[in-house]
């Protein structure tokens, strides 16, 4: 085994880091928390201009290490990067399954960091059981008419596009009869209702009332949408946020040093444990990227890394909050808050990590059935 990055990757990582640091300051971070959009147009544009988004896009023939470096550097810097991560996933899907026109119009803008996209998948009654969704697209002449609603369409308020999963044939079996569309968010009939969360992140419910679109916005073939979302899940699992322990530990240790707590052997013991889990999370994530880089399926390894890293993030952020005492309860930028309130933020921010992008339970089912070869439980 070898744990060195190539000179080429080291140079790219420095470039990514410099680009992120040049466009991220306290004000940008504060704005993201205030507005609830983990999103920074200036950063996206700069990464796009530098050609880094094109390099980071997932897919065949692409270098998966770039996506990993981009996510991990953004995470370490606390940069509002989620909208870029989502754009990269959809750019990769369109690149693989979209039409030339879609790539020209949408993918290019996403990779330039100029336009953004939200995911219209989950519904009020269809989450982990995604095939249970009821949003329908019905043929009417040359057009499709879409009716339904989607939950957790995070970033819809800053998006130019929605990547929308619909039912187009309910008699085609569990995974048949789906169609995916890429639709401009300003299409008549789309409305957005904010969902405010216990973290600073805002999500949305979106509603689709007689939304009319043409065939040019169908991604892949009509009724073959499950194949398209499967491509997306593969990319999404490969880019799960697994690097959160490093900034958590950095902020906690700086606070511990300033407060003198760093000398407490019990706290030192726990800090060492966080450092170990951070290494393990990074190695598991690097292994996922490496597996994709050698052209093998990496989704399972992504699941393994995600379950471990997200549970460790929750466990350790909650410990850090308790260890910081009353000051650990104070929110971002409150005077006297431990680590400027980042510890409280981490506790909140870590909560959805174990269900967004695939719940821990669904991931464990997959690991049990497809990695350990145990019988199907459901």
């Amino acid at each position, binding site marked *: *085994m*070898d*744990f*060195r*990055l*190539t000179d080429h*990757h080291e140079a790219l990582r420095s470039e990514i880091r410099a680009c992120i640091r040049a466009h991220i300051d306290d004000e940008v971070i504060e704005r993201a928390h205030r507005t609830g959009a983990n999103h920074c147009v200036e950063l996206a544009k700069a990464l796009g201009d530098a050609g880094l988004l094109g390099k980071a896009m997932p897919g065949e023939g692409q270098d998966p*290490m770039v996506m990993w470096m981009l996510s991990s550097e953004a995470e*370490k810097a606390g940069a509002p990067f989620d909208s870029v991560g989502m754009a990269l996933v959809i750019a990769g899907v369109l690149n693989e399954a979209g039409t030339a026109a879609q790539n020209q119009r949408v993918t290019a803008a996403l990779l330039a960091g100029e336009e953004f996209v939200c995911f219209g998948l989950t519904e009020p009654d269809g989450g982990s059981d995604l095939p249970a969704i009821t949003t329908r697209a019905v043929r009417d002449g040359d057009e499709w008419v879409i009716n339904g609603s989607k939950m957790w369409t995070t970033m819809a308020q800053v998006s130019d596009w929605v990547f929308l999963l619909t039912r187009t044939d309910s008699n085609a079996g569990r995974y048949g009869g789906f169609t995916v569309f890429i639709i401009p968010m300003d299409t008549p009939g789309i409305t957005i209702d904010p969902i405010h969360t216990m973290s600073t992140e805002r999500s949305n419910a979106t509603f689709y009332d007689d939304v009319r679109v043409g065939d040019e916005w169908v991604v892949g073939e009509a009724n073959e949408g499950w194949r398209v979302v499967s491509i997306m899940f593969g990319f999404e699992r490969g880019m799960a946020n697994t*690097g959160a*322990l*490093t900034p958590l*530990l*950095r902020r906690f*240790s700086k606070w511990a040093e300033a*407060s*003198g*707590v*760093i*000398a*407490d*052997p019990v706290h*030192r*013991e*726990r*800090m*060492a*444990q966080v*450092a*170990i889990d*951070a*290494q*393990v999370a*990074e*190695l*598991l994530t*690097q*292994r996922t*990227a*490496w*597996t994709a880089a050698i052209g093998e399926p990496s989704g399972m390894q992504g699941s*393994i*890394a995600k*379950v*471990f890293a997200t549970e460790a993030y929750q466990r350790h952020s909650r410990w850090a909050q308790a260890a910081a005492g009353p000051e650990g309860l104070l929110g971002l930028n409150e005077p006297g808050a431990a680590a400027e309130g980042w510890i409280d933020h981490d506790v909140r921010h870590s909560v959805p990590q174990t269900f967004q992008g695939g719940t821990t*339970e669904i*991931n*464990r*089912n997959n*690991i*049990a*059935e497809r*990695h*350990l*070869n*145990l*019988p*199907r*439980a*459901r």
Partner: protein
Amino acid sequence: MALDFSLSVDQEAVADAFGAFFAAESPIDVVRGAEPLGYSSQLWQKLRTLEAPGMAVPPHAGGGGATLSDLVVVAETLGESIAPVPLVEHWVASRAHPAPEIVSGDQIAAIALRPADAEGIWRLVPGGAIAGVVVGVDGDELVAVQSSAPMVSPHNHGSAPLADRSARGGQRVVLGEAADLERHLDLWRVLTAAALVGIAERAMRMGVDYVLERHQFGRPIGSFQSIQHGLADLPALVDGGRFLAHKAAWAFDVGLVDGVGVIDMDEGIVTEFAPLAAMALLHAADAAAVSTDRSLHYHGGYGFSLEYDIQLYFRRARGWANIIGDPSLQRRRLADLLWGRAAPTAGR
């Protein structure tokens, strides 16, 4: 050079060869037959025919010149079979003291993980019950002492050949300073981590096999989601342990020692050997503890009975790891390596 999570072609061959060797020569009957001492001299003699005892020593001293990464590969196969031979201790001691009779395996060597006490006794040396030579610290010196092996061990959790040995009672050679021990301990940490990864991996497989075989309520218990989820946590722990052991070995093999490697906690980058070695052992010990615990639990009462093999793994997972001392203290030591020593008077 680039990130690579695969074994080299040569290492694959080594893993296959030693995996097949231990499977054939150290089946579970041999492990059981070696209890309570935890040593099979026949197995040791067979390892000598492979020149395994001298692998860790450089060629100019007559050894096989294996890299630490190569030894990690072998140690994992040893752990998978919980083979009753002190190969890890012998390798570490042989690097410190590559005498010809040790390199050949004629004489077994062990390493005292703790300095000799005031009476000049090394307490509970792993491999000490059967080693003719013990390497360890006595006062300011790192020494090797040759004396007769007691060939008996106190009854212990991991059925390991432990014994108290005198640092002053035999033929004594000074090898260096007391501070030299740390490097040898780090090598022991990495190789023991690899052996524990082998235990964790095998225990996970034994658990999976058993829950497929055992039927209750008319179906294999492995079809129940509660059991599946308990097992599904294990691959991350096992793989993480394997990668950490290999990363530590890689750091050693490419010379990232004594401050040449990086410890940058702001960026989360650690390539220095000593902290990686500490991390590898601590994580692998947890992985082996959790894996053997869950696997034994899913065996139910059978797992608790001596008749079933999982208890052999359960006990060694703890016995092999805890012999170096309280993991809490090991974590504090790791914290010192990562953030520097804390001023003893500071704190709340």
